[in-house]
Each structure stands twice: as C-alpha cells, then as structure tokens.
C-alpha cells in the first residue's frame, strides 16, 4: 500500500465512506473507483479491503470477473468497437481490424503513448445505427473501415492542438 499517494488514499476513503450505509456496497465502490481512476490496481484493492473488511482475495475475484473493471490503466481515449450481432453482420469486425492495423494493438491493449485503448464491446444497444463504435462514451453511427483513419486522426489532431 506504500505506493499509494496520500491524495488518492484520501479519495478512496471518501468513496468507501459514501456507500457505508448500503448493504453489500462492493460493486458500487469499485465502480466509483474505476470511473475516477480508470483502473483498480492491487494497492487500491488492499486499501478497500482494509476499510471494508472484505478479504482482498474476494475483491480481486470481483475485479477480474467483470469486464468494466481493469487492473491496468486505460488509454486517454477508449475506442470501443461494438461486436454485437447487429454490428457484426454489418461488418464491424472489419472496422475492428482496421483500428488494430493502424494503432498496432490488439483488442484489450493500449498504445505505447497511452493515447488509445482498443476494446471489443458486446452490444451498446445502438443496433439501429450499426456498425457503431464509441470513443469515451461518444457514439459514432454507421462506421465503415474506410472512416477509421479519419476518426483516429480526429483525436490525434486534438492532442496535437492541446
């Protein structure tokens, strides 16, 4: 736990405190930490364990079970290509392959510069506009493999201008 910065520790204490009146709040605590920090490293799990009394093995079990929780940091932009059925039959695999090819990473990985994480999503409920993808929550409708370079450039330019 030594590695955890004081500010982070304080914030995690606050999150645990926030849900203290809930029955079985573990999922709520982990969701809050995930959305705050983007990942839940083992040091944080140990802290949550010591604050809640839930064994760290159990917390680790939960963190690794759900795809929303991550043990490693995600990129600044999380590209989620929907591979739900409606998107798949309309060619979303080709879109995914194009992202993989250009970014040089496989689904689940993050680029070396920490800018992009590529994720395969299981249906984001946007089947009416398939194939769909989402970048940090923004949904792109009816995407073709041909549009992929432009989409990536949009975010690279944003970074360059920032």
């Amino acid at each position, binding site marked *: 736990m030594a590695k955890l910065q004081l500010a982070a520790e304080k914030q995690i204490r606050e999150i645990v405190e926030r849900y203290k009146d809930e029955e*079985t709040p573990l999922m*709520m605590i982990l969701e809050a930490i995930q959305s705050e920090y983007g990942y839940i490293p083992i040091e944080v799990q140990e802290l949550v364990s010591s604050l809640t009394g839930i064994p760290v093995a159990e917390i680790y079990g939960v963190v690794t079970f759900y795809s929303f929780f991550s043990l490693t940091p995600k990129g600044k932009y999380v590209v989620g290509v929907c591979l739900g059925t409606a998107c798949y039959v309309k060619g979303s695999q080709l879109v995914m*392959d194009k992202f993989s090819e250009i970014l040089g990473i496989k689904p689940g990985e993050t680029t070396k510069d920490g800018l992009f994480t590529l994720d395969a999503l299981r249906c984001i409920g946007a089947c*009416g506009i398939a194939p769909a993808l989402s970048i940090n929550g923004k*949904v792109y409708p009816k995407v073709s493999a041909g549009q992929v370079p432009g989409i990536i450039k949009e975010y690279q330019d944003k970074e360059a201008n920032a």
Partner: protein
Amino acid sequence: MEQIKTRQDLENKVLKCTDCLTKKLNGQDGKKHLVVCGGTGCISSQSLDILAELEKLIKENHLEDRCTVNRVGCFGFCSQGPFVKVFPEDRLYHAVKVKDAARIIEEDVIGGRCITDLLYEDPVTHEKVEKQDDINFYKKQIRIALHGCSLINPEELDEALGFGAFKGLARALTMSQQEVVTEVLNAGIRGRGGAGFPTGRKWQFALDQHNDEKYVVCNGDEGDPGAFMDRSILEGNPVAVIEGMMIAGYAIGAKNGYFYVRAEYPIAVQRLRIAIEELEKVGLLGDNILGSGFSFRCHIRLGAGAFVCGEETALLNSIEGRRGMPRPRPPFPAVKGLWGKPTIINNVETLASVPYILREGAAKFASIGTERSKGTKVFALGGKVNNVGLVEVPMGTTLRELIFDIGGGIPNGKKFKAIQTGGPSGGCLTEKDLDVEIDFDSLVARGSMMGSGGAIVMDEDNCMVDVAKFYMEFICDESCGKCSPCRIGTKRMLEILTKITEGRGEPSDIDDLKELADATKANSLCALGQTAANPVLSTMANFMDEYVAHTRDHKCPAHVCKKMITYKILEDKCIGCSMCARNCPASAISKTETPSKKNPKMMVYHIDPSKCIKCGVCISNCKFGAITKE
C-alpha cells in the same frame, strides 16, 4: 414543488397535466410544438445539436410564445433518424441535419408549410409520407411497453403524468394484494426477458411467502447483443417502469425495489435517476404513498459488463457484491432471493407493461395476442433489413409481416436467408418459417426462442457457420466458469468451429460438435450453458449443407471465411485503372502484360494470392465490378 399526498391530489395533478399535454399536442394553446428524438441512436447523429439549434433560433426570432421544443425518447426507427416531429400537424421529419433546423423554423413554424424533402419516402411507392402512423414501419405496431416513448419528455414528470402515469398504481392501491396478483395472472402476461415464465405466477409465489422484508428487482441487464428495447424504454419513459415496479412491490408486499442496469447505458441510468428523484420530491415514492399506507423506495445498481448477470440468480450475486455467478435453484428467488429474502425479478419490458394492465384492465391486455402468449412484444429488428429499429407488435404477428411489411425487406436486392431470434441462446429461422405466428411457444417448437426480442436478419452474404462461431465466441467469453460443462464445452465447441472456419475442418468435426452440444445442454447449471449450443444446433439443422461444404470441400459458400476465399480480378472487366493496386494495403496487386479488353491502351491487374490479406478494400474501390471472391 407541490406535494402529491392523497388520491385527490393525484387526480387534480393528472387532470392539469393531461389538459396541458393535450393542448400542446393538438395545438389548442395556439403554439407549434416540436419534439426531437433524444434516444442513443439519434444522439449519435447530432440530435442534441439540432435541439440546441432549434432552441437558439426560437429565441433569436422571438418565437417563444408561438413555438416550444422538447426532447423525447426513442422513436424506434433508428436507422432513419434523427427525427423532429411537429405538433399539432403530427408531421414527422426524418434524417434531419443541424442545418435543417433553420428551415424547420422558417418554413414550417413561421411559414406554416410542410418541408416535403424532409419527409420519409416510401421505398416502394416513392411517395412522401407526412404522418408517423402512415409509415409502413409503424402501421402494424401497438405501443404498450413503449407507451409514451417518443412523445413525452422523459425528464419531466408532469408530461408522464399527463400521459397516463400512475393511473395503474392508483387503481392497484384500491385493490387487495391478491386481487392485483390475480389481475396480472388473468392478463396472461409472460416474462419479456427471455424464458417467458408467467409473471403473475412469479408474483403469487412471492406473495405467499411470509416475511417482513421482500424485494422487487428490475432486470435491466440487457445483454443479448442485438436487443435494445430495455434501453429505449428506460430512456423514453422511465416513470412507467418505476410505476410497474411499485405495483409489483405493493402486490407482493415489498418496500424496496432495485434497478440493475448495464453500465453501458449511461443515458438510461441518468433518466431513471432523475425520475426517482422527482417522484421522491412530490411524495409518490417514500412513505405512505397517496395516503394508502403503502411505502416504497427505489434504488439503482449498475452492472459491470457481464452477460451472465442477466441470469436472475447471477444478478442477485452481483448486487450482493460478488462475482456474478448463478446459484443452483431451488431455492427460487421468490423464496430466497436478494439477501436471503423473497424476491421477484422482472424484466424492464415486463414492468413497463404492468401499468397498462392495471390501468386498462386484464381483459383488454388479454384480448391482444395468441392463445398462450398475451399482449405485445417489442422486437429489435436489425441486421440485413431495410427498416432497422424497435417494433412493438401483437403476439401472433408473422415473421413475414415483421421482416417484409414492417422491416421493408432485404436491402440491395439480396435474398433473405435467415432470421436469428433469442440472441446467443436462440436459433435461426428460415424461409419455411416465415408464416409462423410469433409467440413464446411457436418459436421454441421451431428450434429457436423469443429471448428478449432481438431479431437479426441475415442475407445470402452471411455464412451460417461463421454466425454460429460468432455466438460461441460470445458465450465462451461470457461463461462464468462455475460449472465445467459450460466452461469446457463452449471452449471445445469454439475450437472446432474456429478450425472449420479456417479451412482445417474434417467431416468428423460435425459429429463431435453435436456430441459436445448435447452434453453442454444437458449438464450445465444455468440457462446460459443450457442454451449455449442452440445457435450451433439450429444452424446445423437448417444449413447442414454449409457445414458439409466447409468440412468436406473446404469451401465457404457465402465467401465469408477468409482462409477459404481467394480474391480474383476478372480480366474481361478490368480496365486497368489501377485503383485497386493503389489502395491495396498489402501491395498484393500488380500490373500484368495483358492489355485490357475494354481499354486496350491499359494493362489489366493481377492479385498475388500469397500476399493478399483478404481485407476486401479492392472490391470496395473497384467501380467496374471486376474483382470477385471465390
């Protein structure tokens, strides 16, 4: 905010809100009323920018006393969005762009003219259709679960109250708990989440348990890839789902209800949260609701991306802060559920239909549908069909009506091949099943199932072995690992399917797959494993020829499985424009010495199969149809 403490308060408030909404919609207030779709699909096509632009223009032109604009929930016809609808004319503009906002204000609001080119055009007759209900996509629909979606602002409680909300609960509170359960039993409604278990019976089990603490859980963990009705209902009319949950709570004697919603649905969660807060403020959630002595509170819990949590006992484990693994049944949740207390778990669509049953009466609900499946069902029609979107039709509608009348048939003149219903637990239905009346039992009898209502249409370009592999990949990934038949069975089946689609299959694979499928089906702990093999079994039953072609001849008849196809340039058609070669990412295309027959000055091109990565870029770039897959 004014409190709604008694039945009289509610009646007064409902009268006021109904009057206000009616006047708005039929123009009695002398204003134009614009509504803009705020569903996920339309938002992704800039509908919120359209809304902002309309608001800005109304202000700039000082039209506040002549026109109002409002954000509403999903119209269902997502592929044609974003939508802007104009009342009192009931005029629907589709595929609206931000730049069209100015025209809507100038030509329609100020000029009073219909903007013809923004109207939907019937793809067959090429006639412009002004009113929503005259569009074929909407003609056969009845909106019970989708009541109010695309009409009311989901973030304004007054609008929901003006459109029938809480009439159902108000009636339920005048009845005994048993009478409410009996009403739901008589309506004949079956669970909309997948299995189709009679909702009233579930409620009866829970009512019969004697316990001070009971729970209602709303299953909003809509995991079936290809289904999005729960999302649209929660986004379009969250108050209806809350009301349904409250009626269930009153009926079984629960004081607390939990919504379990996928974290992938942020807008739905936000609107649900707003609705709960509003209801708490006016006193419609909390203690002694409407002076009846009934107290109820709603809570929201988020999923974290695990398909298996749609299984009710896994969902309970997830709320309890554990890995979302199913529990053996019995005991059933109605006896021992959340935190060991009697619990009913109902799907979003089921709960959204409950207020209708109490408001309009069981008999009216039961008059819709078939002998053993009552009411309506929302389908998420997707894939290779012209009109993609959400459709709510009476049970007993045929697949042909669904795909061809409502869905407008298959795009690009392709041939219908199959429709997959029930998601990863379901199966596919083909040409011979098109005239089947859809209900829970008829689909099961044909080797598929209703599931949550996902309906993905496939055409001749889809390979059914590839589709089976797709679903198996999904299930294998989502199998929780608790029981070995599912954990190992799905993995082995996926390995075989991968081998087949990569051209390494052999005839004995088909028998191995069948054996594994039967074993996984018979021995898995929960429905996820028990139904995991359905996509394989059903594609085998209907498309054995494709399996044989893959394993015996190592050919993919639909030209989908990459390892078994080769790209070729047809010398007869190639004009030597070099478009393909310039865009080939693998530099696999080069010029030959053969002059083009169409354009003798140029040489035709050739694809080197050893370099080709089969990405298909050349085909999409060739304007002369000179490249084919074999």
